[in-house]
């Protein structure tokens, strides 16, 4: 598979072309990157992209609590995680940093409060 992406490591914004094998997760060819960090970014983006998910969860009794993953999760799990979070409720006394949902979908990442309830 071939993909073009704009590097976000620095403001230069290199346009990197990557050719990779989706099944073996191997990068076959890469052009356009100007540095090592760009190469690593492009490889991770194609082979195993990860994202921090930020959203809100309902507070028991009313209101919304902003939450986030405490470690990035695989990008393809974002919508599945949203389903879990949208079914959950945070306690009324939740504090910033509290774990609201531990180890979401077995990713090793916790959903934590990013504000006080």
């Amino acid at each position: 598979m071939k993909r073009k992406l704009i590097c976000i490591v620095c403001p230069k914004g290199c346009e990197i072309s990557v050719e990779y094998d989706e099944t073996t997760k191997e990068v076959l060819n890469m052009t356009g990157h100007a540095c090592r960090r760009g190469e690593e970014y492009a490889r991770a983006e194609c082979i195993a992209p990860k994202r921090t998910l930020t959203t809100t969860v309902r507070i028991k009794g009313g209101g919304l609590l902003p939450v986030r993953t405490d470690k990035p999760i695989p990008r393809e799990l974002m919508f599945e995680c949203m389903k879990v979070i949208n079914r959950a409720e945070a306690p009324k006394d939740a504090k910033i940093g509290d774990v609201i949902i531990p180890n979401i979908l077995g990713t090793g990442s916790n959903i934590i409060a990013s504000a006080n309830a």
Partner: protein
Amino acid sequence: MSDITASKRALVIIGAGPAGMSAAVAAYDHGIRDILIIERDNAPGGILRQCIHNGFGLHTFKEELTGPEFAYRFEEQVRERGIEIKLNTMVLDITPDRMVTAINEKEGVFTIEAGAIILAMGCRERSKGALNIPGTRPAGVFTAGTAQKYVNMQGYMPGKEVVILGSGDIGLIMARRMTLEGAVVKAVCEIMPYSNGLTRNIEQCLNDFNIPPLLSHTVVKLHGRERLTGVTIAEVDAQRRPIESTKKFIQCDTLLLSVGLIPENELSKSADVVLDRMTGGAEVDEFRQTSTEGIFACGNVLHVHDLADFAADEGAIAGRAVVDYLTGNLKQQKRIRVLTDGRVRYTVPQYITSGKDVTLYYRVSNIFRNATVGIYEGERKLLERRKIKLAPGEMETITLPASLIASIVGDTIRIGLEEDK
């Protein structure tokens, strides 16, 4: 208001967002104790309260935080120092001699005589009224920030099928946010041939969800009587005029506008503060003092920043300078105006008044690659910096060392940009 007895405060800060709170902390840490922050919302934090996405704090705290977490760090610093914040309090008027009139439910209307004032009111969104899109005037047209408040703080979804006009960061962030909450974002139209948002937001908010960024496109008509039923979009030519043959209807129930931010300076005007037409904010010197003595400005009310981190940094500059002002130590020997060549759209500060190193923040008017940014007095080049890429969406800095400032003989210098031949 002469019949009302005014209480006195050394420093009054208007706005408890990142810039205002950072200014308060800096002023306190440099020795001023009598500080009052006035905030019209029911909690400190400013716009960060609704910016639940990550990407804040990398510069200030060397870790990636969400908006509420970033605001909380400053809130804690303010609380630890026992700095007073009046919440739910709206400033109605400030005068050139620093009388601050405000109102809240408990105290009614009251006036404070301030030794110094820091303006930190932030900015507001450019709205549809300022854009004049032809067509009907149905429900379903929101600024991106309003939609952000509905979704993130009040739990309402503005709609199900969304088109976004403008590629400002809030619009991009909302494209992702609404997609995650189940809406379909059909397009992001940007009238310019480049995006105004940060590259990482293009990548992570649009490309991740296969939302097409349509550059050189705009919305030319709204459809629908009571609720928006769709928009007509079109490609634009080099003069930004819609091309008739490219018109296309997109069915949608929601249009979000992310077409720019305007510093909110109504109060500044009442204090005779001179505004810069390019930034929409006050003209300031390197201490962030405005044209009205004792009134300082920082954060998005001064000029719109890319990152909350930079707004907070600017708050700290103003907070420190206010202490020098109040103790009679603000040394201003000259007044050098910084002119721009148009390619460099603006600088902050616009004036240099002391003999210290001064960092100029600037924005360019277009995308430039392989260019040299130079500062000149007449034909004499003071300083130059090579740039691989400059974009209007990315604020840049250049620092003038004290030795060079000392060598300036006249009262104007010029910042300009040359592309490689």
